[in-house]
């Protein structure tokens, strides 16, 4: 009891919990209003009430298949996202600091960038040998362009007086990069990562639905939802949706924590 008390002492936490409770209540009213009034009020009569969804949730928790969906979606997201970070950050920084590199690589980049990741799905299904690789590739694309454009923008908007000050104090080109440009770009890197992570989840889910997920249990959360739809289990669809919400929240709060660790000077805000 005292643990719960302590937990609720924090105003922000209390607000958050309150908001979620309110949301669930409204959801329940919305879902039940047809039953209560006897007429189809808002055309949302089919939405399962939170209680049913919770029951369905309890139903899938002991099932290995459900957790395998988590694992496979998560690993696809992480794979695509990490590769996008590893390639995207240096690529964006190079675009920012080297005029020639920018001259050569920026135009093709800008032509490819507006193509939505999902438009790549058919081509990559044909091109890559396995389903898994094509999903990973599409996820990578989703995060890559966002990360690069954020890194580039961030690095280019560093105040020139920092560079000038460092230069007049005797900093070399390498020093300028490591001490000024890179730390100055960190906030944009983390913004890019957070946005890119969101896109990655979107893309993974869609790709899993389109590709049918492949092997048994390896379908991921997208396939889980699709499967529930095919099986006509409305409650399970919602369980899948909420699972994605939770997964996305875990990812973005992890990125925030890492950002907090690497940017002590931003803890003041």
């Amino acid at each position, binding site marked *: 009891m005292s643990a719960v008390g302590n937990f609720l002492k924090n105003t922000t936490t209390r607000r958050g919990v309150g908001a979620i409770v309110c949301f669930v209540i409204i959801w329940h009213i919305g879902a039940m209003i047809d039953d209560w009034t006897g007429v189809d009020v808002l055309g949302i009569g089919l939405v399962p009430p939170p209680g049913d969804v919770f029951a369905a949730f309890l139903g899938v928790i002991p099932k290995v298949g459900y957790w395998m969906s988590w694992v496979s979606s998560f690993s696809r997201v992480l794979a695509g996202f990490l590769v996008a970070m590893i390639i995207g950050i240096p690529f964006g920084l190079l675009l920012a600091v080297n005029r020639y590199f920018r001259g050569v690589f920026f135009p093709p980049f800008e032509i490819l960038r507006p193509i939505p990741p999902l438009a790549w799905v058919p081509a990559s299904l044909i091109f890559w040998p396995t389903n898994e690789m094509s999903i990973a590739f599409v996820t990578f694309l989703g995060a890559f362009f966002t990360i690069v454009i954020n890194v580039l923008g961030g690095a280019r908007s560093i105040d020139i007086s920092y560079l000038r000050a460092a*230069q007049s104090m005797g900093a070399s080109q390498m020093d300028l990069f490591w001490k000024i440009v890179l730390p100055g770009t960190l906030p944009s890197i983390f913004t890019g990562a957070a946005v890119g992570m969101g896109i990655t989840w979107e893309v993974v889910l869609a790709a899993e639905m389109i590709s049918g997920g492949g092997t048994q249990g390896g379908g991921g959360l997208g396939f889980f939802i699709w499967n529930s739809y095919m099986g006509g289990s409305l409650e399970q669809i919602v369980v899948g949706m909420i699972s994605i919400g939770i997964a996305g929240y875990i990812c973005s709060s992890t990125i925030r924590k890492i950002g907090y660790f690497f940017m002590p000077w931003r803890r003041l805000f």
Partner: protein
Amino acid sequence: MSSSKSASKSTASKKNKKLNSSQVEMKNVSKAYGETWESEEVLKNISVEFPAGELTVIVGPSGCGKSTLVNLLAGFEKPDVGEVTVDGKLVTGPAQDRMVVFQETALIPWQTTLENVTFGPKMRGEKKGRSLDDEAKELLVKVGLGEFIHKFPLQLSGGMQRRAELARALINEPTVMIMDEPFRGLDAMSRSLMQEFFLELFEENKKTNIFVTSEIDEAIFLADNLVILSNKPTTVQTVIKIDLPRPRNYKMLTSAKAFKYRKQAMDLLHGEAMKSFAISK
């Protein structure tokens, strides 16, 4: 406590033996921006001397190219015509002998006050570790930031940031300090405190100081020499020798002499301001 005091005295006396001010000169300097067919001339044929160990204030109407002048003196930009020299040597780029304190703070936000101050010597690999940290701390204590060495710039007030920046410049032992409207944006109270503090520093170390401002009172209070610029394109209009005794204090601004300088400068600047106002209309 007493040992640190004696240490500070010994380093101070060492510094006094070193050359700590330089003669800076601009000869026939012109600078234009933009493509040749539509270039805008910002500075035109500027020749001015900044005597060693003196505080020269450059004052001119806003938008007249004062910052360009600073960039040329610092070596961030090169003149189209003419040259900038320090002790007769041509300026070809930025260097530690000429430190700039910028208009808006240029403290590096991701470094603490101490890291900012030790940045220069570390980058040049001159000094390291404890002795460098001690020297930096000593300087920070001197500018009144002894308790803020581990704070980030954004945790400091505007006036503190400027003082940290002064410390960061001074640790590089420049022979010329270039101040580009350094107290702009400070509230009136911190501004006058900073001016007094800055004068104290100057009167103590007698480096060559080039101070850019658009405030006439500030200019007269600080200056040995007052360089008044004219506008569009910018040229040197007049150089006034400000013959007020040092050390100075605020009361001197109300003396008859100061009033005379003020009127002289106002008349010149007002004419220039009217001219540029008419052009922009």
